[in-house]
């Protein structure tokens, strides 16, 4: 048979054909790869010398999934369905083919990879492999038999859990659930596969019985299925609001899982195609691709990041301890600096606390934490001890003078190539750097609370930050598993300012007589994790007020503090920390705070404002128009210019609903013309806050979108 394939290495041994899939970098399924696989199988099935086939992959990948870029460009179901069918026919031809096929799963086996493994007649997983159907995370459902074959192999409850969560399982779990027949050490994988082939040869195993389409005994009864589906529907409705794929998965299982697997595949194909052409999938796929590419800015292309081995953390408070958690996990030798021993002691306790959850959940051993603290963490109260480090991250009091004094001292102590990073969330970094002889070494690394869990790292370039400093910082962000989004210095940088403007419309509407409950509900329904009132109470109404004041001073009249904001601030109800803000937290559930509500009512009466009915969509339009407009102002102001990064920042930093793709993706979908028209209308009514940015006006006139494609 033919052996010279681009993506498959073919070997023969004692009646066995061994196909080693080799499609760098991760054995991703592509049209060409599948075509070659189909051809190789066809030839092996025809060859008289070959009695069985072993399928495995190179390196750490069996198959890491399908090429989603191909999927992203699909426009209609009609163009897609024939391709799905062809792919299913290929998979069916392996499943019901004339020879046993053994999947020797050598590593990552996800999506289309697992679907391929599931048409094989015997599966062996090397320890360290992970198996899963992650399609739902990209707004899709498994489209090559996953929804129909997985329940047959592992039972419906586990299958539904795996498919609706998209979470992969390890080799041992896969074995205990029946997804694989054996688990072996990686070096024993081919031997085990050869032995399994022998069992087919000597009749110990019957490959016809092992065809997944012939396995019926784990299918639920009709009543069981009804019960499980009804339960899952309720759970999903609560958990997956706004998404499509989880519901399509349930539908695939509900309508499918009959006795004829191959007929049920058509049901799955159709539902898969529904997902592929949905905006939700396009948004999620876009987000996935952008996340992978985050931080790859043209300005640092080709620059070699400096090697970071030792990191110092200044301040071990809430942010500092969370950041040290990350540094320890990433293997950095970490020095914690605090003002005195007492503060150090407190900080180390706080660091331990950041590991409490993974230890409780048995994802980490106490001994591992102890060994990290013993071997990696040093503490000091003397800045002189930071002489040897490569990177310093500062999270001390938010006071410009204190920070500048420390940096000035450190400049005299540290090597000239050490990066000075500040975790300030409000102070201008360009100003902070101005006291340094070399301001090019300073950069903002804005972590979000809780630092050990939030995925976003907002990297802020000050005016003089060098490309080398940035390149090293971006590389560092990846080592601590953060998604780096790069912006320029300015009040609130990008994320805080954008979140502020996303919520800022609330007070305007309140002042105009709209019920606060309607606004809260509208934003929740839109997909934000919290409404404006609850969020303000969490961050602190006083903090927001001061930020707003700073914006007013630096950014001008559009940011003038609203008179109603002023009145609410004066109540002294600052939110959770004072027991009440927009809401009262003294009971079991937050209820509207009568003091603040009274202030709002009085403001309305004093200004002759009547109660105003507004639909949820009208609220969303207003809130989003304001947010999009401010994004345009930020682009004009040079804070940031990459829509994909801005959208990612909001999704990872503030919980903006991923299925909506981000603020600017939402804007493009809405249409800049429509937004511009709305803004003109709003400006007339509410004043300068809603004044359309020139960028919006120009884009509307030129019929442009934020995204280029």
């Amino acid at each position, binding site marked *: 048979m033919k052996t010279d394939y681009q993506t498959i290495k073919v070997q023969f041994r004692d009646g066995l054909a061994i196909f080693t899939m080799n499609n760098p970098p991760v054995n991703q399924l592509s049209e060409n790869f599948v075509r070659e696989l189909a051809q190789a199988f066809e030839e092996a099935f025809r060859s008289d010398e070959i009695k069985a086939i072993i399928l495995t992959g190179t390196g750490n990948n069996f198959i890491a999934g399908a090429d989603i870029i191909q999927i992203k460009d699909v426009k209609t179901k009609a163009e897609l369905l024939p391709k799905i069918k062809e792919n299913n026919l290929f998979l069916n031809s392996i499943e019901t083919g004339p020879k046993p096929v053994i999947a020797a799963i050598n590593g990552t086996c996800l999506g289309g990879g697992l679907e391929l493994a599931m048409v094989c007649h015997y599966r062996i997983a090397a320890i360290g492999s992970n198996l899963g159907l992650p399609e739902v995370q990209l707004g899709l459902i498994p489209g090559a038999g996953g929804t129909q074959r997985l329940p047959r192999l592992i039972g419906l409850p586990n299958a539904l859990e795996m498919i609706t969560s998209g979470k992969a399982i390890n080799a041992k779990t896969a074995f205990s659930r029946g997804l694989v027949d054996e688990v072996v050490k990686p070096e024993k994988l081919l031997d085990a596969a050869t032995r399994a082939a022998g069992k087919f040869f000597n009749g110990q195993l019957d490959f016809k019985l092992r065809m997944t389409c012939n396995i019926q005994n784990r299918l639920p009864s009709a009543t069981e299925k009804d019960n499980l589906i009804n339960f899952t529907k309720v759970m999903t409705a609560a958990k997956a609001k706004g998404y499509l794929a989880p519901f399509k998965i349930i539908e695939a299982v509900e309508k499918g899982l009959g*006795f004829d697997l191959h007929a049920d595949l058509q049901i799955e194909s159709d539902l898969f195609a529904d997902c592929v052409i949905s905006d939700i999938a396009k948004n999620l796929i876009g987000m996935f691709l952008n996340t992978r590419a985050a931080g790859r800015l043209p300005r640092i292309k080709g620059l070699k990041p400096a090697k970071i081995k030792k990191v110092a953390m200044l301040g071990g408070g809430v942010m500092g301890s969370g950041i040290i958690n990350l540094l320890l996990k990433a293997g950095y030798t970490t020095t914690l600096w605090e003002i005195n021993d007492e503060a150090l002691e407190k900080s180390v306790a706080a660091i331990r606390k950041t590991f409490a959850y993974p230890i409780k959940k048995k994802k980490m051993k106490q001994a591992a934490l102890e060994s990290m603290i013993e071997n990696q963490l040093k503490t000091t109260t003397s800045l002189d001890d930071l002489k040897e480090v490569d990177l310093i991250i500062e999270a001390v009091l938010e006071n410009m003078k204190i920070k500048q004094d420390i940096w000035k001292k450190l400049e005299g102590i540290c090597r000239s190539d050490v990066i000075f990073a500040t975790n300030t969330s409000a102070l201008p970094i360009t100003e902070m750097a101005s006291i340094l002889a070399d301001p090019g070494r300073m950069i903002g690394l804005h972590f979000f609370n809780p630092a050990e869990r939030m995925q976003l790292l907002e990297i802020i370039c000050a005016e003089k930050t060098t490309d080398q400093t940035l390149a090293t910082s971006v590389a560092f962000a990846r080592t601590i598993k953060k998604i780096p989004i790069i912006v320029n210095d300015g009040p609130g940088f990008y994320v805080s300012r954008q979140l502020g403007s996303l919520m800022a419309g609330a007070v305007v509407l309140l002042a105009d007589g709209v019920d606060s409950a309607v606004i809260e509900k509208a934003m929740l329904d839109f997909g934000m994790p919290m409404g404006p009132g609850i969020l303000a109470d969490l961050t602190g109404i006083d903090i927001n007020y001061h930020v707003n004041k700073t914006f007013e001073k630096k950014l001008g009249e559009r940011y003038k503090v609203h008179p109603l904001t002023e009145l609410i601030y004066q109540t002294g109800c600052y939110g959770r920390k004072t027991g009440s803000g927009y809401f009262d937290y003294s009971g079991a559930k937050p209820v509207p705070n009568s003091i603040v509500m009274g202030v709002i009512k009085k403001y309305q009466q004093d200004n002759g404002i009547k109660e105003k009915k507004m639909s949820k969509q009208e609220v969303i339009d207003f809130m989003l128009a304001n947010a999009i407009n401010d994004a345009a102002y930020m682009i004009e102001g040079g804070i940031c210019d990459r829509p994909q990064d801005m959208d990612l920042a909001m999704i990872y930093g503030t919980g903006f609903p991923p299925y909506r793709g981000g603020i600017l993706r939402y804007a493009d979908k809405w249409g800049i013309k429509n937004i511009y028209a709305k803004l003109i209308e709003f400006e007339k009514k509410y004043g300068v806050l809603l004044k359309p940015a020139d960028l919006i006006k120009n884009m509307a006139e030129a019929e442009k979108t934020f995204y280029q494609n």
Partner: protein
Amino acid sequence: MTEVVIAGYLRTAQSRSRPNDPSRDWFGKMRADELLAQLLPEVIKKTGIKPEEVEDFIVGSAMGVGEQWTYGGRTPIFMANLPETISAKFIDQQCGSSLAGIQIGYMEIAQNFADIVMIGGMEHMSRIPMGGITADRGFIAPNISLFMDPKYKHWEIATAINMGLTAEKLFTQTDLTREALDQWGAQSHQRAVKAGTEGFFDEEILPINAKQADGTTMTVKQDQAVREDATAEGMAGLKPAYTKKGVITAGNSSPLNAAATSMILMSKETAKKKGIKPLATIRSIGFAGVDPTIMGAGPVPASKKALASARLQASDIDYWEINEAFCVVALNCIKELGLDPERVNIMGGGVAIGHPLGATGIRLAGTLARILNKKGGRYGCANACVGGGQGVALIIEKEAYNW
């Protein structure tokens, strides 16, 4: 000993199972425990007792694995929403399972440890098939040494575990002919068709509304495997199913089936007190072990033991229900015990009605009791061969019950 009576009996129809094409099994989309759960409250009602009066529940199945695992007999109680006070146990004596259930229930009452005992049987041979598939999927795992180690060679386990091969081997030890087997098979169908047409089974079958593969719902109230068109000539044309030159075919063997069966046993005194008319009184039980490679011989010694305990001769028995796992089993028993074939399986046997393994015993005993009532006989004997080389038997007597 306290006298024990069969006070109630009810079963589902027996669907025809096909592990390779469950869509044709009328019960393909139901589990066996779901069938059983529908049956249990109904047999209690039909008998005329209250659920809380049942003291013990004994449920049998030949494949208590996968979805037929019952948590020691408790899940059918839960699924039928019966009182928690009913203790339960699961019993596996393969094809004798629910006959064994009756035997144990009988002993519990006879020795005054219980007064009312409910027996259940269930088997779904599409969803939990027997044989290679279950072994292949790891549901059952007979010790490999039994096949490999020379010290176990004499068991001939490869034959002992394959029912068809045991039937072939039993055949070679008789002077029966292939024609005799086929004839008995065809007659089994003809008798079952006649009984069905006359409505004999209507009283023992609880109709079940079952979802079908095409999404429709069917009320299942007939045994699916019974064929009106079965003839000895037609059967003669069938190919041997197990060995090339063998005689055992799909026609003279029982089909695969799914069903649930149920029975209520109680002391005769209690039946009298409650004014319940029993179907029959249990007189004796028997069990015996035989060479596992000819497990079909099992009913002979088991029946002999039961007869001896009851101080009866084979000729005293008016009607017999011999489980037709294979026609050769029934014919061998007829010959060895010298029975009148016209008094054996007169409403048709397992070849036609079906043999849902663990559920079969109750069907044999229940049908037999109803035959005695209908035909006016006194003694009846039900027996079955058991995979692994066993036989089980039960002797009942129909009395007047004038209360």
